[in-house]
């Protein structure tokens, strides 16, 4: 394998987007959670909601900042490293990205200032509105970026000109392309689950350490409720997304299931080492016919295997196969955790059940891992295409020297390592301190620069 500009650019894109996606996945859910907390506080006036809001907004501020700066990199990389993709495909999906900036990025960025610093400057109603607008902005951003990415998976509503440039023929078909609804539902639910698992894990950790007060009890319950509802729902959305893959990207399905042979009654492969050279699995453990059953195939329905495709058109099988299994495994564990949490809650033992709390702590990064492996399945499974069936990844790369790409990749790795380590440490420190942790509650004389310098006065019943 040559480390040419193409391979290095692919590694760089994979690295930078894998880093980036962790933050939107977390902040989409967290922004909504904060809006709910602030709304509940304004509505019920219960202190616990305000405490939780003030606590989680600190973690939100750190995560959001990291999401913003790693996101700026993404849009410029389309040009620096994938200039042919930009030139040929942007006439179709460029407007979607433009709409993301116009309808989401400005909304988030502008009202974030009010949300973090404006509590003393605007009334509680306006502040709540700002929080809601940030939450809406994150979701709208998800809408557009999922639409653009789904179009790359299942392109529709376009034509290819004589010069190879694509041109939209129907923007409604472009935006609402075949895989978009399922993938949008799947990703948004993933974001909410990721946040719920992180909140549950942090709250359980605080309970286990004995540093928790009422706030952590409430947060743990809210998170358990969301996991119990969203995790089973996510199974349904995942299945929906799988059906779309089956119809539109059969090569990806074959890679997910490690099916090399086109046949009826496909097996369900539990474990295998897919071998591209051999065009078959080694060490395969499989249940005959169950694979077709999982796909809800008609009896006798032939499902394509990878032998339907020339080697040059096959996606890499092993990473797709393993990523999918990790994602689904984590998803099932999430469903289990949700039911367990609901059960101990129902039995009134949620605050005492240390085994459940330990499990919640253990599962706190599960959402992030599932998001990453899910994206590996989606993006590696699309290879060797950047726009599925239309433009090959190899034809999309920029005319830049490999040395430049190697240098930029190294630069991003070093900078992201520093930024990620610092950010993670700050977040973990906050998790350890807890909502009623070491930091004193906001007072009249706060150090300037304090994120929450503008937090509301701690006067009982003072509605500002």
């Amino acid at each position, binding site marked *: 394998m040559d480390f040419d500009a193409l391979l290095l650019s692919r590694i760089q894109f994979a690295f930078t987007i894998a880093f980036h996606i962790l933050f939107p996945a977390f902040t989409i859910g967290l922004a909504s959670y904060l809006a709910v907390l602030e709304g509940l506080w304004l509505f019920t006036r219960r202190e616990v909601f305000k405490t939780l809001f003030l606590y989680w907004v600190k973690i939100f501020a*750190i995560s959001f900042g990291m999401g913003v700066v790693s996101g700026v990199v993404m849009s*410029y990389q389309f*040009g620096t490293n994938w200039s042919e993709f930009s030139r040929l495909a942007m006439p179709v999906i460029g*407007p979607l990205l433009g709409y993301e900036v116009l309808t989401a990025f400005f909304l988030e960025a*502008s009202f974030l200032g009010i949300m973090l610093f404006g509590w003393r400057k605007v009334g509680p109603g306006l502040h709540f509105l700002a929080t809601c607008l940030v939450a809406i902005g994150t979701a709208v951003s998800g809408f557009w970026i999922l639409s653009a990415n789904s179009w790359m998976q299942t392109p529709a509503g376009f034509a290819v000109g004589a010069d190879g440039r694509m041109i939209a023929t129907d923007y409604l078909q472009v935006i609402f392309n075949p895989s978009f609804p399922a993938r949008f539902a799947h990703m948004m639910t993933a974001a909410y689950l990721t946040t719920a698992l992180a909140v549950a894990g942090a709250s359980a950790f605080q309970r286990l350490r004995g540093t928790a007060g009422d706030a952590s009890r409430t947060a743990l319950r809210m998170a358990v409720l969301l996991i119990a509802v969203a995790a089973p729902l996510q199974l349904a959305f995942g299945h929906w997304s799988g059906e779309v893959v089956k119809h539109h990207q059969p090569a990806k399905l074959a890679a997910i299931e490690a099916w090399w042979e086109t046949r009826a009654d496909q097996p369900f492969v539990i474990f295998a080492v897919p071998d591209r050279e051999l065009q078959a699995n080694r060490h395969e453990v499989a249940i005959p016919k169950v694979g077709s059953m999982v796909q809800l195939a008609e009896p006798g329905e032939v499902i394509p295997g990878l032998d339907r495709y020339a080697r040059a058109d096959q996606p890499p099988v092993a990473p797709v196969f393993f990523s999918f299994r990790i994602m689904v495994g984590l998803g099932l564990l999430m469903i289990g955790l949700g039911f367990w949490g609901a059960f101990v809650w129902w039995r009134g033992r949620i605050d005492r059940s240390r085994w459940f709390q330990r499990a919640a702590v253990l599962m706190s990064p599960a959402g992030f891992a599932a998001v990453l492996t899910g994206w590996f399945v989606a993006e590696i499974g699309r290879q060797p295409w950047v726009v599925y069936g239309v433009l090959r990844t190899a034809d999309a790369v*920029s005319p830049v020297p490999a040395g430049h790409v190697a240098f930029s990749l190294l630069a991003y790795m070093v900078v992201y390592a520093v930024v990620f380590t610092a950010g993670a440490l700050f977040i973990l420190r906050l998790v350890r301190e807890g909502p009623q942790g070491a930091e004193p509650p906001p007072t009249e004389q706060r150090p300037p620069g304090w*994120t929450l310098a503008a937090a509301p006065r701690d006067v009982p019943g003072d509605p500002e």
Partner: protein
Amino acid sequence: MSALDLPLIWAGLIALAVLMYVLLDGFDLGIGILFPFSRSAADRDVMMNTVAPVWDGNETWLILGGGGLLAAFPTAYAVLMPALYLPVLLMLVALILRGVAFEFRFRARRRGRAFWTVMFWLGSTFAAFGQGLILGGFIQGVRVSADGTRFAGGPFDWLSPYTLLVACGLVAGYALLGATWLMMKTERDLHGDARRWTWGAGALVGLLLLAVSVATLFVHPTIAERWGVKPGGIDFGQLAVLSPIPLLGLAGMIVVALGVRSGSHRLPFAGALMLFLSGYLGLGVGFAPYTVPYALSYRETAAPDNALALMLVGTVVALPLILGYTAWVYWVFRGKVTEEAGYHH
């Protein structure tokens, strides 16, 4: 829609987005550039606080400028970004480090805080420097393949004495914007410091702007011709038509100087804005109508009309809203920021 010249409208909109970016993120990058001149950690806190609520919105104009170019002029984007690979990398990496520094600096303890303070300074400075290299590399022209679809130059074409000069000029310019912003937003000692910084940065900007202006005339014959500098002599008629642009710059300098001398807190910032507008228009006049100087025009690089029309509909609705709520956010955070009060008033 057929009656509208969509590529022209989009060229104007992207020019507006880039101008907004330069003016808005200019002053908050400038504050980072000025960090090493500050007296104390408390002063640096106040400096950062004057921009903390708005920097993210400011930087979004960069995404609109870049994303707008990507969407409206994909061929220009596809040629320019590989041509400017390393300056763009420098800018992005610097923006990452300074962007996270806002939160990290307040969260960190002793040594981490010192580290993120330095990162805020370096990140702001090199983001500005990288943008200057991008600007200079753009103005000196980009070599394009015969079919007009790809960058065909060398990997270090962007590096020249001219681009280095422009980069230094932009760093000084942002420092001036930052200093005048601080004059407007701070009190007492820090205000006094900002006043001195305005003098220093202003003098530097005056020199560098003059140098850049002269150098730009020699960087490409198209620019010289545009300004009436022709092989046979100077066409004063043509120069006169464009003379309001340098005069605006001169007026900006005078407003800054008079503002500082008269003790005004706001006039210097207004003057600095005038100066930037003049520089922006002056450079823009030189390379218009190219989106890839001096090879591809805005028309040759534009996305199809249906894409431009779709985006225009969204822009007509969203842009006034964005400008409106951006103005509102600035209004909410108006007035002086002081050490004791933070944002309390």
